């Protein structure tokens, strides 16, 4: 009896301790992500209007300076301050990322909901088009789209958005299909609701959490694509500071041993990505604790 009690107590304690550790790890991740994202967004929003410095100011005497107190991130090959360039670059990349993710989510939700709500031939037709488009590499199709327009921010947004709504459409369609089979949809049909009303009032609100999560996770993804397009010289015009452009310009100096012009823009891509992934992971755990183990990020 005493031994059993001791065993229960022991396992109970062990279990609690393990649970406590897990919880604190999760809280730490959540807090770190939130803090990093807040700092990034504040920097992007506040630095340009508050700091009256010209990110394009050229100082050939100070070119390719290693990081020091005057230039915490160093300078590039024409002596521009890299910290300022990175903040401006992140501003552009984040704008492209958010705009593209929002557009992709709206398009994907509309297409996925239509396919799921109509079902039958409409569903099969639409999803085969989605499959066909998915089979083309995103970057290739993105290049094709930007190539049709003059370089600028909006062609890049269009290029990323039009290649990334496919996964959202799939997620939304799957959710709509599973909701559609539930009796409350039967009840709505029997109550005289039109197809539109069933979709907008009963199906879409049920898929919104998933769609919102997909949208948030797509922001960093869209930023990578913007950077990739700019790195290839196909995205934003070269005078616009964007993270991709900064890395592209710094390629030459990397070979000469100057690590800072590529490292810092790279970090500016990686840090917000991890922060968004951390927050989205915490959110997903909250809306659906059972899928915790499937969390990939």
């Amino acid at each position: 009896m005493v031994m059993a009690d001791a065993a229960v107590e022991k396992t109970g304690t062990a279990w609690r301790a393990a649970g406590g550790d897990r919880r604190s790890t999760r809280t730490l991740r959540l807090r770190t992500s939130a803090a990093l994202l807040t700092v990034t967004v504040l920097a992007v929003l506040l630095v340009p209007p508050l700091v009256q410095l010209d990110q394009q100011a050229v100082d050939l005497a100070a070119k390719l300076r290693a990081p020091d107190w005057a230039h915490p991130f160093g300078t590039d090959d024409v002596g521009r301050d890299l910290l300022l360039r990175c903040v401006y670059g992140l501003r552009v990349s984040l704008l492209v990322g958010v705009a593209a993710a929002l557009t992709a989510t709206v398009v994907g939700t509309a297409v996925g909901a239509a396919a799921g709500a109509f079902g039958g031939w409409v569903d099969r037709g639409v999803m085969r088009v989605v499959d066909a488009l998915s089979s083309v590499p995103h970057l290739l199709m993105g290049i094709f789209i930007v190539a049709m327009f003059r370089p600028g921010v909006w062609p890049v947004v269009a290029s990323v958005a039009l290649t990334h709504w496919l996964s959202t459409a799939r997620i939304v369609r799957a959710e709509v299909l599973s909701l559609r089979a539930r009796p409350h949809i039967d009840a709505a049909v029997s109550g005289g609701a039109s197809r539109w009303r069933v979709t907008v009032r009963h199906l879409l609100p049920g898929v919104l959490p998933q769609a919102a999560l997909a949208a948030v996770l797509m922001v960093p993804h869209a930023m990578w694509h913007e950077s990739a397009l700019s790195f290839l010289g196909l995205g934003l015009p070269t005078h616009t500071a964007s993270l991709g452009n900064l890395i592209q310009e710094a390629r030459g100096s990397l070979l000469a041993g100057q690590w800072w012009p590529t490292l810092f823009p790279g970090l500016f891509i990686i840090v917000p990505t991890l922060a968004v992934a951390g927050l989205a992971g915490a959110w997903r755990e909250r809306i659906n604790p059972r899928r915790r183990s499937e969390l990939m990020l």
Partner: protein
Amino acid sequence: MLELLTVTAGYDRRAPVFRDVSLSVAPGEAVGLLGPSGCGKSTLARVAALLHRPDAGALHLDGTPVRHWRHRAPRALRTAFGVVFQQPRLAADPRLTLADLVAEPLRATGRRDEAAGRVAELAAGVGLTADLLTRRPHEVSDGQLQRACLARALVLRPRWLVCDEMTAMLDASTTAALVRVVEDYRAGTGAGLLAVGHDRVLLDRWCDRTVDWASLNSPAEH
């Protein structure tokens, strides 16, 4: 007259749930349908309520064959059926309050103005208090939610009621209360009833006529 004539239905054309089932319900008549689990009686109820298109066979409503199901069916025809499902949890949109749940068919058919009066009247009929009407499905019990689902089925004054195991999840007193509400409604309007269930005692007492699933068809071979 609601007539199902040699209906074959299921979710896969190659393996229907049942074949060649015929059943008819006269106006004002209450027919109980008894059958074991998984025999297809719920599917038959969905076919009868225009919610599931059969693979073969015909459904005649007052002598006119029905050609379309679900959204393709004319609204007036769809709303002629009030349907109550077995599991109120699944049959209620989790985001709507019970008042909105009951009023939803009126809103969907553009009769928003009648909603307040009709909901109050039905709530009193099925025994839902004003406090319960402001709650969402997860804040009420199964019995209370099923009362709201019954009120929703009656809100458009259907000519036919289809109750698919309406009382399977409920205790005896709630069962009695809901059956009484259905019978009061039928006495007032002369609506026909198809009650599906597996409780022979209940269906025998409730309905004018009880039919056994086995007497309706030749079951699908597998």
